[in-house]
């Protein structure tokens, strides 16, 4: 089950669309559910489906199509480093190597203490600020030099 406050947030999203088009709110609803639960398990997906009057498989299809949804548990902090070409030219690929070495994990792995999951990003849309990293899908960190990365990892307790 989702909390009252999550359901309220979902209601606000549903209101953006015509009355017969509740399904349009599914992306937002999954994001809200993921914020509450940390990741999307089958029960959470079923709960979103039930709330929006959709078939669970239709909700699962959406959850598995967009890459910011997590269908497996992730660490407390999910770090997404963009390594695409424009970022790599200004240190994106080097930044990813640096984080891997510092945390001792590869992409799609979680540190043993459950604090960090590392992901490879595909264009976060901020190439001019490279190297860039996204924390938990929400916080964009720009110009991530080794010093900035050290500071960020220190902050994420």
């Amino acid at each position, binding site marked *: 089950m989702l909390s009252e406050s999550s359901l309220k947030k979902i209601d606000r999203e549903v209101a953006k669309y015509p009355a017969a*088009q509740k399904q349009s709110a599914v992306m937002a609803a999954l994001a809200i559910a993921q914020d509450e639960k940390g990741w999307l398990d089958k029960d959470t997906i079923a709960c979103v489906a039930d709330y929006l009057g959709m078939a669970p498989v239709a909700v699962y299809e959406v959850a598995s199509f967009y890459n910011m949804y997590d269908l497996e548990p992730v660490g407390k902090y999910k770090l997404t480093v963009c390594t695409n070409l424009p970022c790599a*030219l200004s240190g994106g690929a080097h930044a990813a190597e640096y984080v891997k070495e510092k945390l001792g994990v590869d992409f799609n792995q979680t540190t043993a203490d459950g604090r960090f999951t590392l992901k490879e990003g595909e264009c976060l849309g901020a190439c001019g600020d490279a190297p860039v990293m996204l924390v938990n899908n929400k916080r964009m960190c720009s110009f991530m030099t080794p010093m900035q990365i050290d500071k960020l990892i220190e902050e994420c307790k």
Partner: protein
Amino acid sequence: MALLGAINPLMTSGWAGGDAGWRLKDYVARGGYEMLRKVLTEKVSPDDVIATLKASVLRGRGGAGFPTGLKWSFMPKNFPGDKYVVCNSDEGEPGTFKDRDLMRFDPHSVIEGMIIAGYAMGAARGYNYIHGEIFDVYQRFEEALDEARAAGFLGSNILGSSFSYELFAHHGYGAYICGEETGLLESLEGKKGQPRFKPPFPASYGLYGKPTTINNTETFAAVPFILRMGGEAYLNMGKPNNGGTKLFSVSGHVNKPGNYEIPLGTPFAKLLEMAGGMRGGRKLKMVIPGGSSAPVIPGEMMMDLTMDYDAIAKAGSMLGSGAVIVMDETVCAVKALERLSYFYFEESCGQCTPCREGTGWMYRIVHRIENGEGRPDDLELLTSITPNIMGRTICALGDAAAMPVSGFIKHYRSEFEYHIENKRCLVPRDVQWAGSTFYTGPSC
């Protein structure tokens, strides 16, 4: 980072205040919402609005460069049901980061452009689909919408007229394909973002099956400025068939990566100079002039080109979204292509066989060439795959994946051959991507 430079700025003219100048009161102080007021209170006819856009030769800023006025005129006039206006802010084409700054520093210009679009096309509802990874910008846009509602620029009987219009923001969640307009519509309907076959085009069968017009963020933001200065004056800022100014996102090996607004037709050499020139004084090797899908152009050829749709197309590439990726001599063409090919493989939606299978196939071949395992007939194989993807898929992602491959091979064939023959890179490993400055700091 705010605007780094401009010549005759329009859309970025309000960016001076940076993160402190985006609110409604700031926009109104700059003359914002005056054009909406004029259109509604002076009862300018929708046809006149569209005629002004046609005269301006504003071309779609998302990548295709289709004339905006013409697109708007395709919407059925006397349609009895709902019609929609949709803004494509799903900015995910590698190298492009202009719409993010537009919505961050001047969200109300996008809102005003979308309201005027609704009026001109007789739509009562609009959606702005915002790229998933820029949550802070999505939040700001929502706040700007609240301000516009509170001020009476959105809602029923706007400014005392008979025109009513609602506008909402929709947050994407990480799928490059949703930048394709019909993929975006599917996504907006709460489905996988798999593009639709065209025809029917969105103007007749769009969101929820209703007539819909989709434009890029920058295109909408230009509308109030065009109405203010007049279509012809806007056209004359650029060059014939390439009206006005455009935002260029400059990334890669320049001293000042960032957004620049310049009139279309400005020489590339001038843009490079504005971006602080080449980082570390290294030599320019190649430029991707319009986002990762655009074929690469060698540096010396690029230095003679102007930044507009027609000049870049004539040189065999595309102006696309205006994302200029600058690469110096430390970049290996094979390695650069390998990363781009991986991107298209990762982002193919899987709907059409030539793209789903072809993007993976191309990536695996380029990957093995880069890693010293290339085979003698690999280049022939690659050049036989690309024409079997291009034009054979529902949407343009297949073309977008194939064009970089054929572009890099066309201009840098000898580097690919060297890799295959010698099992190593022409650019020594310790020099490769020295320009990244991650370990050395930005001055090197």
